[in-house]
């Protein structure tokens, strides 16, 4: 695998908008809808998932020649679960308020399909350094999507912004700032599941517009080629009818 500077930068930046795990690949929808109620929760969830993602990508990539392909999924889960356990213990010890707020979604990072998806689609095939960058980019993309959605949902749904942020900032010794209170008659629907889906759909449409606005018109892309995962998908390599010659990055 030829790893020049350009493709490494691509592995890092693709996760932020172009292949944003939540908004473009539609992975990790469950934690996204559940934790994007408040910005503080989103930041906490995003950081936790990013740490797990980077660490598991590195380990899985390093072990990719050792793990037999038939039992790779259980092996990946064991690696991911170890890191989730570590992160969960750390959060419980240092930010107990966040642990209460995230509840079951923190241990559920184990089966978060972003992390398993990146292990399967990227870390299992690429070098350690590229996998680490991929994990970092995807993690930032996940956190970014969560924060954007949570900003809309928290301001409209609770009338606050960054409420309870002191539970995170007190790690750095700052406890004075506890968030803004903007108005007192919020739109309750936004904190509920329908509001989550609503904001999710609108932000997703916006991300599609940003990611595809400059490129070629969508009508030209058909079948597998229209998928943002096209270049790393296993189907593409075997299926001759799918055209991925337009992709510049990966050359074996």
């Amino acid at each position, binding site marked *: 695998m030829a790893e020049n500077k350009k493709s490494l930068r691509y592995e890092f930046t693709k996760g932020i908008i172009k292949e944003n795990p939540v908004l473009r690949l539609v992975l990790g929808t469950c934690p996204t809808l559940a934790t994007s109620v408040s910005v503080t929760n989103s930041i906490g969830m995003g950081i936790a998932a990013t740490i797990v993602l980077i660490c598991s990508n590195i380990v899985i990539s390093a072990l990719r020649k050792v793990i037999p392909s038939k039992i790779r999924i259980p092996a990946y889960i064991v690696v991911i679960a170890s890191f989730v356990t570590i992160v969960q213990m750390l959060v419980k010890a240092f930010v107990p308020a966040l642990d209460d707020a995230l509840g079951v979604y923190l241990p559920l990072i184990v089966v978060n399909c972003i992390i398993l998806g990146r292990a399967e689609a990227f870390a299992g095939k690429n070098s350690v350094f590229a996998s680490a960058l991929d994990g970092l980019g995807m993690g930032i993309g996940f956190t970014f999507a969560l924060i954007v959605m949570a900003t809309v949902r928290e301001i409209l749904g609770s009338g606050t912004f960054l409420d309870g942020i002191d539970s995170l900032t007190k790690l750095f010794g700052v406890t004075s700032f506890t968030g803004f209170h903007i108005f007192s*008659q*919020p*739109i*309750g*629907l*936004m904190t*509920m599941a*329908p509001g989550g889906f*609503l904001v999710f759909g609108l932000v997703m449409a916006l991300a599609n517009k940003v990611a595809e606005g400059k490129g070629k018109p969508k009508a030209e892309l058909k079948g597998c080629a229209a998928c943002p995962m096209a270049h790393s998908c296993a189907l593409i390599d075997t299926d001759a009818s799918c055209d991925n010659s337009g992709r510049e990055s990966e050359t074996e």
Partner: protein
Amino acid sequence: MINGEKLTVSASPHFRAKSSTRKIMLDVIIALVPALIASTVIFGLRALMITCVSVITCVLFEYVFRKLSKKSTTIGDLSAVVTGILLAFNLPSTIPVWMVILGDMFAIIIVKQFFGGIGQNFVNPAIAGRIFMLLSFSGRMSSWSEPCSGFMNLGGADAISGATPLVEESENLPSLIDMLLGIRGGCLGETCIIALLIGGIYLLFRKVITPVIPLSFICTVAVVMLIKGRGDFTFVAYQLMSGGLILGAIFMATDYATSPITFKGKIIFGIGCGLITCLIRLFGSLPEGVSYSIILMNILSPLIERATTPKPFGTVKEKKTKEAAKA
């Protein structure tokens, strides 16, 4: 006739009447006028003001969205006006104006225009707007003002909150005549049953709606409530006249875009609406279920249509020959 310019060739159906969306919507608006007058008499000028605000903002949002997205302007078909009136009819007269505007925005922009405008919406915009407001501002949405508490009261701040008959204790119920005339707490347009029935009869007379959905909806509720009330007809009468049942059955369940077009489908739609309404009223934690029942059946109506599509003439025969060929 040989002259090609005069010979008009078009696909069926060949309408002779000049039926258009605009005319249909105009008929619906005319049918809603009696209820609007009744609501103004019962709840005061504020009811009229809420309705006007709702209509104006609906039309405005539709116009602005179509302009911004560079599509043809569709405010001429008056569908936004109907949505505005129906949404206002689903609100209590004490509702703050900014909440009405938010509800209109949800109904027109998110439910209607994001899905492609008139005819493309998957649920009735007015009901979706009401449910949005019900979930968001449940306190304000269920504080009814006392009927006839002040005709000139435009502020709405000093309105007394009274419960709707659905949740009220049985000794405090208004009389059946008051129910029929609409002298009770409730949303703007839903209380005066007589005015709604006049509008419904006008729509039937003008052939804008068929009686299938309203009748099957109301009859299902009546039958279930008769069983529940163990044959008590007074209980049935209260159940039929309270809440938004008549308004929903006549004006909102019959929306063309979101209800099935086949006869069988319409019956299934109406019965489904009635059953869900009864389930929510009798076993749910919410006092009223009409809007939820209609929106749920709206979502089901494509499936109902698929299940009740009439077979084209000759399909059965073709199948038989195929089977024969296989054998």
